[in-house]
């Protein structure tokens, strides 16, 4: 352990002071040295006796060095260039940054300028920076002389590579004491650049303000004057900025007189205290009015007072106009809803009526104020239709957006109207289900008419059946039983009975019935007497009064009260009773009883009365065996009607044709060479021939009631309803051919007889039976003269028919010779543009005339039934093409084939499709059938079954030409289909106006809600394509992509190089 001794205190001798002092210093030195030697330089301090530490010299020196090094380090670490100048301006020293700067900028001078006079250097500067240098020198002199506390200046100092700026700072080396300065240069380039950018962006902002189409303005609220407006003012206001600046208060003059007060108020300090927006009108010098939207912001001084109003004014004339037009279009739409001949009603979630149109009010007899806010079900829905509220709940809860059904609603008077509804879910802007909107079509009359037409058709059939019966029946019993059977089986009555009355006792009984049972028949009491308990029953009244008695609602008819229960239990709802009168005296009564109420209207009654007359007539002639009467109406030889009866019947058919608004055809058939037969083979053979002809005609006509023998060798036939153009012609062809080919057997030999026919049409050629027959005779004469097999009364008709028949035979030939071809029209995905499928279209390549447009021959194919064969061919052809492409490794796109109405109705069609599908390795994939909407709607139930069967085979189904009827929307959700094709007409209308666009948009969203793919047909322009894409339509086809092309072309152009 080492220990240093404390130095002992010095003693000072009185004399030789300097010597003593000197010795003392020596001693001190020696002591210090000794101490350091003693401690081997390992010790820093030594304490005196009071404990005060004293640094040893070497430690002091070390400390000084350290301090100097630190200061130098600080100076060198500074990013500024530092130089110390002496009072004369000579450079004493520089820091590392200064040196580095000098190095980097090629300014290396001996010792980096240390020793040079900085002031002189600055004074001598020449060239670009000379002026700045002189300024710097002046500043440094001022600080050196004590005349300034400090000096700063910013100056550019650009190097060849970049622009630079420096900040020069000069401060005294020691404050309040002249003696040199510190010169600092700081690189402020970055800051300077930032400043420049700011200035630049401010400049740009100003440019924007000056160039923008809106008007910036600054308004002095206190003095109501405009301080500044940007140049757009001139454009919008039509006045110069100078004019406003010259008269700052004049801006208010430009404001429309009616808006001035409001604007003045708006620009007061109080109102302008917060940002606001206003709209007002200005009047341009020419008198033109423009709408301005001005947004204002208060500008406040330090005390918070609004001193200025800053603002932005915008010309919204155009915008307002557009908005106005939009409102107008909305108004038109709601007007449409209001005025349309459809029920429009909206319900909230609680079934309260929130909107109804005047049509509903007219229909039901309520006033609007009675209806709004009321419960729909309380007011309009018949009480037996409970569960309708559940329906509303289901509708509100269901995901489906459209729902349809039919139900009756009550009018104020208690009547019922049948309405077919389409419901749509109403959603709030947030998407909540807030109720339903329903559009309803009053189909009461339509339904009634349908039912009535169905009934009348049956009654006609019944009439015709009874007529045929009358011809062949030989006794009353058979007549009665058969008449009842025809009434039930043909006339669709629930029950029919006939009762006869004993002329002496006037008591009667049921002798024939059909459709009921004996128990019921037992209920019937029949009497011709008055005053019995049964005398007032309708059947008895009919007997007594010799006129028809009608009971259109058994449930309410008092006369049937006693047996009402039994009748109702048997499902009988209405009845009619007809007296059967022989020579003016009622001998029997016929009852026709229906399962519906209100069956017997005037038209039906008239026909049924006629029927009862026919039966009466037959009773009469059977009863009296009066063959003469019979002969008056029938041809004894053939049993066919004679001319008289035929004309009567034709008259009847004409009346129903007029009602049904359809045509009727009357044929007069003349046998050729009949006279020869008569003469060569004898009269018996002639008669036999006539009978065989009558049989053949009956077979051809299908109903003996349609035929008559009107001359020795002339027969007449009536076609009560001409179904379509071509119908008559084909019938004639069939008949003429049938005649020619039919082997008539006379005396063990086979004869071929040919016939000619003359045809007259109702209503074109005549409006009464007699005239029509005469016209048919005239037509027949001409056929004989022209050597034609048949002739129409109108020559044009004959020509048209001939042309049609030529076309028919050409088409038959075309099918045999394979002149039909398939063309393919591509369908593409609207979003991606990629090929998704093709529609196969039949073309007829007539070698004589080239490609025949489908519109010319497809209808003929359908009329002739050839569509079955051609349709089958098309299906197989399209399938074969598809399979070939698939086998060749080409893209497997879906090919769709059109199906004709007749095909879908045919029972064998599904089997045909199944055959095709079964032969494919991948079944029905890749095949689609297109079926027109109208066809599906003709018989919805059958269509649904057929479509389901088709889809079960894996084949897709598309609805073609969609959008042709409102009613179809209601069935759409039920149809088992995959694709919906929007008819080209809608696509065309889409660009014509907002309604067309809205319609297509609706169809698309409807289809999507039903998860159907939507294909737009007939797309011809980019605009249509763009709109369809916007509307979310899935696919399109049309001339924009390609017209239908032959299979080979389709293959090379679209399959081999998929459109992309």
């Amino acid at each position, binding site marked *: *352990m*080492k*220990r*240093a001794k*404390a130095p002992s205190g010095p003693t000072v001798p009185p004399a030789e002071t300097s010597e003593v002092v000197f010795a003392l210093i020596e001693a001190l030195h020696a002591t210090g040295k000794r101490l350091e030697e003693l*401690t*081997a*330089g*390992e*010790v*820093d*301090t*030594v*304490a005196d006796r*009071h*404990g*005060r*530490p004293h*640094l040893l010299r*070497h*430690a002091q020196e*070390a*400390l000084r060095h*350290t301090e100097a090094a630190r200061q130098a380090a600080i100076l060198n670490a500074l990013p500024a260039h530092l130089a110390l100048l002496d009072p004369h301006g000579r450079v004493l020293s520089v820091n590392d940054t200064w040196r580095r700067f000098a190095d980097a900028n090629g300014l290396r001078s001996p010792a980096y300028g240390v020793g040079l006079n900085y002031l002189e250097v600055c004074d001598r500067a020449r060239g670009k920076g000379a002026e700045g240098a002189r300024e710097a020198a002046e500043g440094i002199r001022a600080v050196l002389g004590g005349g300034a506390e400090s000096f700063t200046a910013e100056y550019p100092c650009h190097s060849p590579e970049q622009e630079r700026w420096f900040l020069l700072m000069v401060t005294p080396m020691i404050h309040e004491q002249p003696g040199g300065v510190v010169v600092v240069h700081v690189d402020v380039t970055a800051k300077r650049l930032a400043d420049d950018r700011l200035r630049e962006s401010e400049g740009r902002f100003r440019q924007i303000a000056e160039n923008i189409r809106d008007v910036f303005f600054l308004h002095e609220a206190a003095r109501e004057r405009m301080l500044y407006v940007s140049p757009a003012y001139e454009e919008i206001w039509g006045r110069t900025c100078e004019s406003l600046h010259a008269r700052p208060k004049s801006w208010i003059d430009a404001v429309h007189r009616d808006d001035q007060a409001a604007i003045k108020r708006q620009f007061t300090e109080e109102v302008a205290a917060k940002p606001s927006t206003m709209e007002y009108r200005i009047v341009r010098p020419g008198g033109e009015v423009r709408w301005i939207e001005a947004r204002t912001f208060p500008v406040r001084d330090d005390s918070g007072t609004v001193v200025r109003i800053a603002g932005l004014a915008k010309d919204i004339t155009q915008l307002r106009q557009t908005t106005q037009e939009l409102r107008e279009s909305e108004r038109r739409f709601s007007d449409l809803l209001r005025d349309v001949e459809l029920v429009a009603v909206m319900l909230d979630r609680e079934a309260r009526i929130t909107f109804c149109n005047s049509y509903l009010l007219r229909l039901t007899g309520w006033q609007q104020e009675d209806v709004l806010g009321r419960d729909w079900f309380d007011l309009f829905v018949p009480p037996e239709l409970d569960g309708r509220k559940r329906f509303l709940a289901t509708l509100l809860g269901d995901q489906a957006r459209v729902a349809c059904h039919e139900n009756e609603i009550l009018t104020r008077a208690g009547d019922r109207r049948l309405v077919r509804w389409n419901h749509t879910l109403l959603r709030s802007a947030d998407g909540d289900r807030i109720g339903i909107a329903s559009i309803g079509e009053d189909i009461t009359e339509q339904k009634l008419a349908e039912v009535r037409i169905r009934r009348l058709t049956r009654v006609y059939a019944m009439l015709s059946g009874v007529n045929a019966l009358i011809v062949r029946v030989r006794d009353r019993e058979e007549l009665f039983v058969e008449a009842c059977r025809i009434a039930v089986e043909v006339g669709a009555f629930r029950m029919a009975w006939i009762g006869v009355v004993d002329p002496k006792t006037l008591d009667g009984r049921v002798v024939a019935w059909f459709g009921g049972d004996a128990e019921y028949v037992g209920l019937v009491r029949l009497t011709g007497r008055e005053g019995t308990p049964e005398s007032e029953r309708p059947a008895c009244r009919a007997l007594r009064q010799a006129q028809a008695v009608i009971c259109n609602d058994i449930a309410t008819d008092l006369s049937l009260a006693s047996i009402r229960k039994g009748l109702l239990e048997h499902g009988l709802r209405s009845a009619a009773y007809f007296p059967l009168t022989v020579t003016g005296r009622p001998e029997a009564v016929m009852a026709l009883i229906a399962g519906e109420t209100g069956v017997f209207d005037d038209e039906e009654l008239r026909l049924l009365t006629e029927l009862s007359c026919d039966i009466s007539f037959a009773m009469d002639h059977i009863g009296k065996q009066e063959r003469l009467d019979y002969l008056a109406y029938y041809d004894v030889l053939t049993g066919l009607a004679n001319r008289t009866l035929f004309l009567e019947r034709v008259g009847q058919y004409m009346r129903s044709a007029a009602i049904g608004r359809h045509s009727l055809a009357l044929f007069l058939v003349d046998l050729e060479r009949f006279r020869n037969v008569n003469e060569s083979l004898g009269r018996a053979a002639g008669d036999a021939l006539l009978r065989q002809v009558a049989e053949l005609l009956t077979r051809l006509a299908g109903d003996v009631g349609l035929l008559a023998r009107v001359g020795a060798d002339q027969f007449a036939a009536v076609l009560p309803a001409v179904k379509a153009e071509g119908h008559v012609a084909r019938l004639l062809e069939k008949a003429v051919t049938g005649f020619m080919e039919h082997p008539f057997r006379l005396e063990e030999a086979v004869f071929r007889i040919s016939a000619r026919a003359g045809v007259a049409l109702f209503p074109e050629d005549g409006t009464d039976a007699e005239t029509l027959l005469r016209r048919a005779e005239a037509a027949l004469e001409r056929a004989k003269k022209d050597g034609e097999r048949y002739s129409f009364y109108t020559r044009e008709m004959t020509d048209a028919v001939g042309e049609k028949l030529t076309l028919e035979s050409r088409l038959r030939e075309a099918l045999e010779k394979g002149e039909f071809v398939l063309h393919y029209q591509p369908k593409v995905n609207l979003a991606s543009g990629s090929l998704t499928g093709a529609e196969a279209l039949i073309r007829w390549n007539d070698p004589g005339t080239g490609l025949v447009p489908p519109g010319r021959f497809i209808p003929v194919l359908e009329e002739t039934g050839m569509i079955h064969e051609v349709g089958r061919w098309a299906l197989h052809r399209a399938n074969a093409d598809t399979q070939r492409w698939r086998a060749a490794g080409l893209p497997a796109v879906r090919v769709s084939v059109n199906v004709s109405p007749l095909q879908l109705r045919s029972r064998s069609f599904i089997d045909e499709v199944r055959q095709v599908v079964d032969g494919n390795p991948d079944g029905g994939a890749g095949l689609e059938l297109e079926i027109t909407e109208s066809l599906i709607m003709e018989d919805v139930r059958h269509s649904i079954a057929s479509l389901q069967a088709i889809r079960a085979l894996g084949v897709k189904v598309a609805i073609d030409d969609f959008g042709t009827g409102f009613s179809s929307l209601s069935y759409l959700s039920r149809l088992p289909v995959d694709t919906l094709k929007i008819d080209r007409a809608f696509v065309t209308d889409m660009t014509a106006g907002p309604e067309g666009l809205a319609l297509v948009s609706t169809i698309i969203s409807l289809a999507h809600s039903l998860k159907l793919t939507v294909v737009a047909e007939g797309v011809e322009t980019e605009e249509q394509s763009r709109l369809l894409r916007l509307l979310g339509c899935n696919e399109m086809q049309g001339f924009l992509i390609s017209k239908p092309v032959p299979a080979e072309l389709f293959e090379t152009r679209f399959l081999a190089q998929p459109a992309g």
Partner: protein
Amino acid sequence: MSRRVVFRFRLYVADDALNSARAVINLTALCREHLPGRHEIEIVDVFRHPERALADGIFLTPTLVRLSPSPVRKIVGSLSQTSAVLEALGLEKREP
């Protein structure tokens, strides 16, 4: 048992004078190597606390005082000669 003995040192220094600074560095290095986890060092600046130096009888800096284990020992100097220091602190014989 002796390995668990904690060495408590107090080092008197003169601010950051050369030898004092060295002594601090040497002491901490020595402790880290030879007395890991069982040492405490207190540093006293005599310029700031001359009264403590007087009380402890310290006249020279730097001076290291070993407070424990007893007996108390004092070593003057920059502690640069490690082996001598270790010996003085009684740690040398523990090294092989």
